[in-house]
């Protein structure tokens, strides 16, 4: 039984005309504001082509989904897109259950998520 690192890691980098946000750890009611800060910051600076890489995310709750949905709504107002990279089956299941698979582009690789932006 091990206690993993509970701190979430969120960082962003520019890839061509898009920005990739890397998230690692557990996105819950305590940590999701940290994800929101980075997403909102990028959108505030006029970036509307986003890939959010969730490959290192082990857990996401409704507040985390809310951050993603909120980001998508904002970039769409400017003709932008949010694509997700997600391979974890438990997390894909959450996107399935909530019907969010129909709203987000969800990809197995970052390359595919970036390619689908343009």
């Amino acid at each position, binding site marked *: 039984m091990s206690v993993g690192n509970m701190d979430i890691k969120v960082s962003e980098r520019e890839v061509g005309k898009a920005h990739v946000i890397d998230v690692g750890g557990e996105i819950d009611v*305590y940590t999701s504001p940290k994800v929101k800060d980075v997403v909102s910051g990028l959108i505030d600076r006029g970036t509307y082509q986003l890939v959010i890489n969730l490959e290192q995310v082990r857990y996401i709750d409704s507040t985390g989904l809310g951050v993603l949905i909120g980001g998508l709504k904002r970039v769409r107002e400017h003709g932008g897109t949010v694509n997700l990279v997600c391979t974890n089956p438990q997390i894909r299941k959450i996107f399935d259950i*909530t019907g969010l698979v129909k709203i987000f582009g969800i990809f197995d690789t970052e390359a595919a998520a970036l390619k689908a932006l343009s």
Partner: protein
Amino acid sequence: MSEVRAQTAQDVVFLRIPAKAEWVVVARLALATVASRSDFPIEAIEDIKLAVAEACTNAIAQGDAAGQIEISCSIEQAALRVHVRAPSGAVAGDHRRADGASSGLGLFLIRSLMDTVEFDADASHGMDLVMVKRLSN
């Protein structure tokens, strides 16, 4: 006397955390550990984790920041029964945060992930949620 108790007693794990975002992880992980010890498969453990967390998140959104969340988990034959309560004793109904009326997504997830869910929330009594996850499905 002790034999009668052993027959009727059911293992119950009880947890009380402050109704604050930072402590939800304690509930989530404690319940995951109980489920793991109760031989639930990994996917069901993940379901229970998320359902408990959503119940706590809901209580935090609706409640009073000085309040407590009480989680009682009964280990039954082939099921876990989880009772999440957030009494709103200290705060009158009309002082509660209006923006947390109800998280549609959180409750939707709970109903999707657990086998049975009874949810009751009103301003005078706080939140009361009972959910059951069965071992076989």
